[in-house]
Structure formats: structure tokens, C-alpha cells
């Protein structure tokens, strides 16, 4: 039987989800919950949520009139009237409530609002992942995992064997040797795995604003793909004239002053795929972000690598061209020339500013690959 509070809680969560849906575009575009992300939860600020509150009555503020009274005498209205001290503020009050939402819920909302098709993982689930499950019992372990029922059963068995168990007065007192603890077993389970490789141009022409756009977009891509795959790996590659693999923190906070050679990032990416992610076992997603500047004759070299080494091995290759103060914006033209606008695996998106992130995510993930 469900408790009343469960129903209230469900209703509250429905309201929260409704509010998130209403404001999703704003959350997506402005990345308000990034930085508030926990391992499995994100805190979302909801400015217009009406929280239930007590409504005070009129106690002590006059009431039913008594006695004769005089004509024109008002019924009491509480304490004295008059002007208070200080002035009213001119700004609206802030009523921001933060609610925790699981990444799974967030992905579901994103998927339904953007009408994203569910992804069909390619190939079979060949990767064996070790999973720990608490389904065995041991004689030793931490007290926090003590299995009380088993411990008392053991104590009872011992007392019965020893002849100290009294049916009339069934007291079971465990001793140290009776204690039993929950323990885990690891079992290999097949699962569909995916790897996302992010590549970003960090040359002098990419400013912090562009990187912030990339970060917001990557957060939503992660959230969606995480909901579609059991195991999701993320790798990060930055490049200017040279490329290297870095961690997530470095990826978003590095600015180099070097030139721009996109092919250098493709080389590192191809090497990473060779060494760690076979396309037979992994669903491979490649996301590249740049301002479209590429030096010299590098575009033809980059196109060659992309055509031969990256696109055939990936589920999707997504290129997001972020508009920067300088970016020549020419690279997307080269990609269009090489792959066309309706390529099955190559998806191109121009992100003019933060407001374009929403549509860009839809473009990238709308294929259901």
C-alpha cells in the first residue's frame, strides 16, 4: 500500500519535471546546472516553483464586533495603521528553489523534448563488464554489512546444538562466531559499450566563450548517451598545431597560442581507436568543435584522415563549428564539400551562440545512431 507521502512526493516530482520541461531550452542553452553536477544527480534551480506554504488566519486581528458600537466605527483591523520605516525595494524578490534530478530523468526529459530517437547499438554486446552484486555471506566483514537475520539464525542453530535453546523462553544471544556479513560476488555481464571522443581546437582564436559553449553541449551529449549505454567512456583531445589526449579538466580550461592543424587531432584520435577501441566492440562517437580556422593545406590532409581512418569506424562523426571573433569558418565548407550535407554518419552544425546549442544537440543526436 502506498503511503500518502509517496503520492505527494510523486506529485511534487511531476511538477518539477513539468517545470524543467518548460524551461529546458534555457537550461540547455545556458548550462545552469553544469558545475552543480554530482555523480548521478544534478541540482537545477527552478525560479518559479510554487512551494506549498502555510496560510495564516486572522487571529488577533479583530473579529466579530461586540457591544453597541457607534455609527461609522470600523471593525478592528489589527494593530495600528500608519507608515512604516524604510522604503519598499524596487527589485523583484528571488524565489529560487534547487531540486535534485537524476541524470537518467534529465536524459529522459531531453529525449522527449528534442524528440530524440533511442539509439540502436551496433553489433552485439561483446564487452564483458565485471559487476559486483551483494549476494553472498561471509564470516568476516565490516559491521555496517552485518546480516542480522543470518547472524541470529546461526546463533539459534548453535544454541540448539549446544542444548541451550529453551523453547519456553526463546532467547537467542549471538556470540562473535555467529556473526555473518553480506558480501559481494563479481560476475561478468555483457553490455553495449560506447566511447565518446571529444576533439577541440584550443588555438589562439578560440576564446573562453567558445569553450563554454562546447562544455554545455558536451554535458548534454554525455547525459543523453549515458542514458543509452551501460558503459560510457569519454576521451578528450585538444589541438592547436599539435594534438594530445588530456583529461576533462584540462580539455575545458586550456588555451594555447599555437596555430591550427585539425589533422593533428585526427591522427591522435585514430591512434586512440587503434589502441583501445575496436569498432567491433565499441560504439564510437566522435565530436569535434572548432571555429573553422585551419592553416594552410591542412584541410585536405584532415579530410583524408577523416575519410579513411575515422568515419568508417565511428557510429557518428559530429562537427560543431562555434562562431568566434575571428574564425574564418571555412572548415565546415570543406566538410560539406567532402561529405555533403546529408551524409549518414557525418553531421555538421554551426553554433552561432549559446542560444543555438539546443538546436545543435538535436541535429547531432537526432539520427538515433
Amino acid at each position: 500500500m502506498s503511503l500518502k507521502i509517496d503520492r505527494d512526493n510523486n506529485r511534487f516530482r511531476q511538477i518539477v519535471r513539468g517545470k524543467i520541461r518548460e524551461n529546458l531550452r534555457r537550461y540547455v542553452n545556458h548550462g545552469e546546472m553544469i558545475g552543480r553536477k554530482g555523480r548521478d544527480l544534478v541540482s537545477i534551480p527552478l525560479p518559479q516553483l510554487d512551494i506549498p506554504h502555510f496560510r495564516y488566519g486572522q487571529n488577533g486581528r479583530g473579529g466579530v464586533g461586540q457591544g453597541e458600537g457607534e455609527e461609522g466605527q470600523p471593525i478592528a483591523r489589527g494593530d495600528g495603521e500608519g507608515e512604516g520605516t524604510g522604503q519598499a525595494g524596487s527589485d523583484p524578490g528571488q524565489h529560487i528553489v534547487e531540486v535534485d534530478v537524476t541524470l537518467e530523468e534529465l536524459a529522459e526529459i531531453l529525449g522527449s523534448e528534442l524528440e530524440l530517437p533511442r539509439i540502436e547499438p551496433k553489433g552485439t554486446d561483446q564487452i564483458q563488464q565485471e559487476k559486483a552484486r551483494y549476494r553472498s555471506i561471509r564470516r568476516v566483514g565490516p559491521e555496517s554489512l552485518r546480516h542480522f537475520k543470518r547472524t541470529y539464525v546461526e546463533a539459534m542453530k548453535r544454541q540448539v546444538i549446544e542444548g541451550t535453546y529453551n523453547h519456553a523462553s526463546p532467547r537467542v544471544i549471538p556470540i562473535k562466531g555467529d556473526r555473518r556479513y553480506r558480501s559481494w560476488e563479481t560476475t561478468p555481464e555483457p553490455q553495449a559499450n560506447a566511447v565518446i571522443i571529444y576533439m577541440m581546437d584550443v588555438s589562439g582564436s578560440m576564446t573562453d566563450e567558445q569553450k563554454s559553449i562546447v562544455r554545455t553541449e558536451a554535458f548534454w551529449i554525455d547525459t543523453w548517451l549515458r542514458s543509452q549505454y551501460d558503459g560510457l567512456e569519454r576521451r578528450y583531445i585538444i589541438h592547436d598545431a599539435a594534438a594530445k589526449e588530456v583529461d576533462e579538466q584540462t580539455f575545458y580550461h586550456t588555451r594555447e597560442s599555437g596555430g591550427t592543424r585539425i589533422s593533428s587531432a585526427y591522427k591522435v584520435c585514430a591512434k586512440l581507436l587503434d589502441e583501445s577501441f575496436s569498432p567491433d566492440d565499441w560504439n564510437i562517437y566522435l565530436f569535434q568543435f572548432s571555429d573553422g580556422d585551419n592553416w594552410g593545406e591542412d584541410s585536405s590532409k584532415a579530410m583524408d584522415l577523416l575519410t579513411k581512418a575515422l568515419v568508417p569506424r565511428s557510429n557518428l562523426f559530429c562537427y560543431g563549428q562555434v562562431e568566434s571573433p575571428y574564425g574564418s569558418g571555412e572548415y565546415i565548407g570543406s566538410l560539406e564539400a567532402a561529405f555533403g550535407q546529408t551524409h549518414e554518419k557525418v553531421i555538421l552544425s554551426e553554433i552561432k551562440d549559446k542560444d543555438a546549442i539546443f538546436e545543435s544537440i538535436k541535429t547531432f543526436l537526432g539520427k538515433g545512431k
Partner: protein
Amino acid sequence: MTIKPQIHTELNRLASLAATGPHALCIDLVDGRLEATLTQIDPLACAFEYFSYKTGKLANATVDQLKDIANTLSTRLSYLLESISPIEIDDEACVVQMRSNPPQKDDDGTRYYELVVTRGELNLCRYSRPSGRVRRVVSANVTREVFERLVEDFVAAVA
């Protein structure tokens, strides 16, 4: 003969051919060669799409030397529409790319100078990039006095 009279004479000569170009301006200087494509010349001003100073002095320059030249130019070229500073430095190819910092932005998009310092050449162009479209070279309008000073500063930066 100093640089200014040489340029003055050549501009007058090209202007006498036709006011609107394109005109190819080529002047051999002491340590190098000035090449420019002028789209307009009149008695007071001119417009160029391509401006390059080629010199053998930079043939074996290291990237640090090119950086020094870029910094010198950044200080000297204070009279253009926007100040110019190094944006990208490619150690491998030995190239320093300088651009207007900040670029000029308005409703029509972004406009900026791009000055590329490479081994053997300094090259200046002005670009326009309408929002959401590919950039293209546009004419940079300067007075004749500014044009002459530009040449002098390029030569001085390499010297």
C-alpha cells in the same frame, strides 16, 4: 633614394593610369621587395587588398625572431583601424599570425586585419566575415601617408 619618395612616385604613376584598379604595385627596396594589389588610388588615399613585404633577411629566421618582429609590429602599427597582436604561433611551420585585437564588430559581421609573419615575408590583408558565412578579403582603405608609413614600419621591424 628613401622609401617615401619611391612609393609616392609609384602611386602617382599608377593613379595616372586609372583611378580604380586593381593595380599591382611592386617596388624594390634596399633589403627586400614591396608588393601590393591596390583597388583604388586617388590624390589623398588608396585601398589595398594585398600588402606584402618580402625580404631575404628572414629566410632563416627562427620562430623567436619572428615573434620579436610580430611584437615590434604590434607596437608600431598603432594608427590602423584596430590594434594588431599575435594570435597564433606555429612553431612547426615557423609562422606567426597576427590579427586585430579586438576585431571590429557591427551588424554586418566582423572585420579584422590579418598580418602573417613567415620566413621571408610579412603579409597584411583585411577580412570581413558576415555572421554565419565564410570570411573574404576586403579592401583596406588608408591615406597615402598611412600607406607610406606602413611600408616604413614593415621595413624597420625586419631591420
